[in-house]
Each structure stands twice: as C-alpha cells, then as structure tokens.
C-alpha cells in the first residue's frame, strides 16, 4: 500500500468514519475545469479521489459516465493530460490518495511499464482497471505492485466463496465492492445486503472495503457507510457536471454545483456512524 493510502485509512479509522471516495471523469467538460473540480474535492469532503480515464468503449459504465468520457475525449483528454492533472493537484495536496480508474487498452497502447512509471512519478497511488480480472494479473497488476502502486480490485455479488480468495490476492489499497450486478449509475443497492456482503469479505481480509455503484444521495451514502470502510460516489457527480453544462461547455455553475453535491454527500458519509 502506498504511504498516502495507508495513512488516509488509518486516520479515518481513528476518527471512526468511513472514507468518502469520489469518482469524476478527467477532462470533462475540459481540462481546466476538471482540474479545478479535482482541486476542490478534498475541501468538499473527499477522502480518496478516483480520477476517470476516458475510453471509447466503457463496457461496464452506464450512460452518464459513457457520455462524460466522450466529452473528455473530444476535448483531447489522454494519459499525458491525466498525469498533468495529477501533478497539478499534487502542487497543493500531498495527502489525498489518487486512484486512476479506466479500461486497459489505452494503457496497453501507451505501454504498461511506462504508464506505471509515469503514474508513480506524477503522484498516483493506485489504479482500478475494470477489464483486468485476477486471471490477467501479469499484464499490469504484478508490475504495479512491484512499484509500490496499489492495484484495487473489484469484488461483486457474483464473486462467490470459491472465487473470493483469488480476487483478494494481489489486491491492495482497498477492495472496491460493486454493490449491484450492473453498470455504473444503475439501481440503488440495498444497505442490508451490502452490509452482509461487506462483513463476509471483511472476514477474509484486513484491507479496507469501499462500496460503490448506484450510491447517489447523502442518505444512501450514510446507510452504506455504516458497514463499509468507504463509500464510492461516481455517476451522481458526473451527472451534476453534465447538468451544469451548456452545449457541452462549462458554465459558471459547473465547479460550484459539483462541489456542492460532493459536500452534501460528504455530510451523509460523516454522519454514517453517529
């Protein structure tokens, strides 16, 4: 685990509150605005930042994240610019962990080793690569771990007893428990079932468990955060960015609306265990 990630979860455990993990799409609606959003996230209550890397064919994502990715690509977002965003963020913030999230092909084309070296240099802490299951660990996971970068794995409701150890092996940073079978931004998860699943995974690992997919409101975040070590919110943030745009361009409300939403959900996360 990177030092930043370890420190962050240790601090949160001390405060007895779950982590608020925020996903947003890098480069949406343009580079400058998304840097501004990113820089504002910790102040608005984000404990860990997931920085989305756009891909033309995001097979596990719902309509809002698909659309955000296409907007970002149209504005020229790519891996070098993703690293630029991380560098810009690190100018003011040395403590908030940054996790890159996306699909494998752009990384494979960039060169896996070069991707990891550049990510490390820019100040990235880990990555979630949706289409790299444990069966494909040799591609990126093992080289990432050897550089002390976190490789965060998804566990899902379909991850059964037999498969769980395989999913947990080589996972580091945190485990991202996908609360529903489905795409991002779909149906809301049932807190009771999520709590059961989280307890089940916790019995097998000491790594923090963060829960995401379908969490949109402060109330939902609070309910999920009771059992989980962290709550991930993505599509709701990305949709707020989208709603603030005019002809796909940012307006004066884009950054403020987005951070306001983040702050309101953060409130829910913070009260989860009170």
């Amino acid at each position, binding site marked *: 685990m990177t030092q930043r990630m370890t420190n962050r979860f240790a601090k949160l455990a001390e405060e007895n509150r779950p982590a608020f993990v925020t996903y947003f799409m890098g480069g949406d609606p343009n580079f400058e605005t998304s840097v501004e959003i990113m820089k504002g996230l910790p102040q608005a209550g984000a404990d860990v930042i997931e920085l989305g890397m756009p*891909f*033309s*064919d*995001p*097979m*596990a994502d*719902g309509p809002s994240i*698909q659309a955000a990715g296409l907007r970002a*690509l149209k504005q020229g977002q*790519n*891996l070098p610019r993703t690293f630029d965003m991380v560098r810009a963020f690190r100018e003011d913030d040395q403590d908030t962990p940054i996790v890159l999230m996306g*699909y*494998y*092909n*752009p*990384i*494979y*084309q*960039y060169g896996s080793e070069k991707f990891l070296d550049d990510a490390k240099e820019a100040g990235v802490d880990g990555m979630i690569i*949706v*289409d*790299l*299951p*444990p*069966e*494909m660990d040799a591609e990126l996971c093992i080289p990432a771990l050897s550089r002390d970068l976190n490789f965060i*794995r*998804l*566990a*899902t*409701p*379909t*991850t*059964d007893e037999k*498969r769980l150890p395989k*999913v947990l092996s080589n996972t580091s940073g945190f485990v991202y428990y*996908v609360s529903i*079978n*489905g*795409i991002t931004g*779909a149906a809301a998860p049932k807190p009771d079932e999520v709590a059961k699943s989280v307890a089940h995974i916790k019995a097998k690992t000491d790594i923090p468990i963060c829960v995401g997919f379908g969490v949109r409101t402060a109330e939902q975040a609070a309910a999920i955060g009771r059992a989980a070590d962290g709550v991930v919110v993505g599509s709701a943030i990305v949709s707020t960015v989208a709603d603030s745009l005019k002809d796909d361009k940012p307006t004066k409300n884009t950054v403020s609306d987005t951070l306001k939403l983040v702050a309101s959900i953060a409130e829910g996360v913070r009260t989860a265990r009170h």
Partner: protein
Amino acid sequence: MNVQSPNSFRMGPDEEGQFGIFGGRFVAETLMPNILELDEAYKKAKRDPEFLSELEYLNKHYTGRPSPLYFAERLTEHLGGAKVYFKRDELNHTGSHKINNCLGQILLAKRMGKTRIIAETGAGQHGVASATVAARFGYPCMVYMGAKDVHRQSPNVFRMKLLGAEIESVTAGAGTLKDAMNEALRDWVTNVEDTYYLIGTAAGPHPYPELVRDFQSVIGKECREQIQEAEGRLPDMLIASVGGGSNAIGLFHPFLDDDSVQIVGVEAGGKGLEGDEHCASLTAGRPGVLHGNRTYLLQDAEGQIEEGASISAGLDYPGIGPEHSWLKDTGRVDYVPIMDTEALEAFQLLCRLEGIIPALEPSHALAEVVKRAPTMDKDQIIVMNLCGRGDKDVHTVAEALGIEI
C-alpha cells in the same frame, strides 16, 4: 510481427484462453464467474456423447446439414483459371452459417440452466439465428443491434420480431456492431445470473472464440470429405470473408495443418485503406484489448477504438477473432482487403452467372476469388465459403447502384 511457427496450428487456445498473445479474458469481475462456468460447461459438453448427438441431429434435421459443396461451373469458365467450389452455407435454415453456432450455444445455455438469451448482431444474420433457436427452445430473446444497422437491414429486423425476439436499437457511438456488443455486455453484467450471452462470432473472452470456432468447424469438416469425394484430393486454396471471423475459422480450422492448402481471409476494405472508412483490422490495425480479448483492432494512437465502415453490415466491426490475429502473425493465413466496389461487382457477377444471390459478406470473398482464380492453373482448386444469402442486402445493393425499388 514474427512469431515462431508452432508444430500444429490446431492446438489453441492454451489454458489461459490465449492463442499466442491473443485472446484471454479481459472482462469485468462481475462476468468472470459466469465465463468460468461457461468454460466448465463447454469442457463437459464437448466430451458428452449426448450433447454431440443432439447437436448433430439438429444440424441435420433443423438446419439441413451437410450443406452442399457446389462446383461453380460457369463462374470457373468465366474466370478461366482454377476450379471454383462453393461451400453453400447460405442454404442453411435462416440463410447463413450463423445457425451452426447458435444451435451449439443454445444447447449449452440449456445445460447451464439459463432462462434468457441475449445477442448482438450486425447484419442481422446472427440476430435472426439467435431469435430462431430461442424460439425453437422456448427462451425469451433480446437482440442488440446498432441503429444504423437496424435501418440498413430492416428485413432482418422484421424477421427477428416475427420470431418473437425483442430488438434494442443502439444509438451509442456510430450505431453499428461494436456498439451493439457494448450494450449486450452491459445487459449481461446487469442480468448475469439468469442470462446467457450468445456471442455471434469467434471473438470475445475465452471460451467464446474456442467454442464458436468448434461449432462452426462443421463447415470445414464437411468440406474436407466433400472435396475428397468430388476431386479425390484437398483444395489448393480456401477463401472466406472475415468480419469477426466465424465463418472463416469454421472453414479454415480443419485445414490449418495441411501445408498444401493456401488459406486467404478477406477483410472489408470499405472505401479504401488510406482513409478511415474500412474495417480491415488485420491489415490496417494493431493489437489491443476490446470486448474481452486481445486482438488486432482499429484504433487511434491513444488506444481509443475507431468505428469501422463497410457496405456490409456483417463485416462492420473494428476487431477480429483472436485466433485470426494469431494466424496472421504466424503467417499461416494471408489476410487481404476487398473494397466495397469490388464486392458489389462480384455480387452482381454471381447473380448472373450462377443464379445465386450472395450476401455482401461472402461477396468480399468472391471478389478475391475473381482476382485469384485467373492466375491459377486449370487443375487447381479453390473452395470459397458462401456463408450467407443476399436477400437481406437487396435494398443496400439497389441504393449503392442508384436504383430505386
């Protein structure tokens, strides 16, 4: 890329589901248990005499196999070179080779206890074949089809509806096969417990490339026997069109270890390889990861997938089955592009010379036959896979020729 020649070209994939570096299982975790379950189910099924005999029965009595191997006498005379044979999979029930795969997979779905079928389709041939087997076995069926294809293949859309399938018109991206496959994968991730994803081509995560190839290999196996019977020897050349590559791998696979048989796969060259309006992933693409497998892809410098373009909806896919990528890199199979205009000419030629209206997909293979046969000796033999009939394409052809019908 140069890859060392293996002892046999017919042993793949390996335990990891890879053909050399190609193939694999690049999918979201939600799907992994299902894919492993499918792998198990298929391993058992292919050794189960009951499964094999049920499939054989259906192939024979439902599809009408074996499909004939037909000597195209007038075309041969016209071209003035090698003897041209057609493997006539366009005579199958539903009008293309797609039914071979669908019957195999629906039997797997049944064994796995799934209760709902989803499929993607480009030209609509696989959608029709999926809807057909779903009707035959009493399953609800949802077919994802790009909006552009829904328009240009409207007869097939109506056929699917008649067969009781639901059609979801996909507007994301350019609204073609790639986008339909993305939507089908999203459906599968959401309904993974009860749903069987009936992939139509020899691509996707392992074990799909392997099992689709195996179900389609009935084409090549029959062909070996039939050409022996007709000519007393193996052909000199095999030619088939490749979109995802299922009809081609079905014909090629049983011949891969026969050195004397030259093998040619024909990609959609669209309006030419210099622009971006083509689908020649092997000739003009490079290896990448999409839809669960590593394979040659049309993509930009940063790994974003590009839309293909072809007059033939069935070839309009920016990827290719992983085994074809490996066969290209090992040099066992030659892959060449054919332009829209060449395919259109070949289409018309076959109508007039042989009284056969071919689909636009095999019309690409036919255009390559038209180029190669005249350069070969008269005692040489070409077998081409005539994998689909062209009724579905008459509107597209009329439009391309500027004729109103």
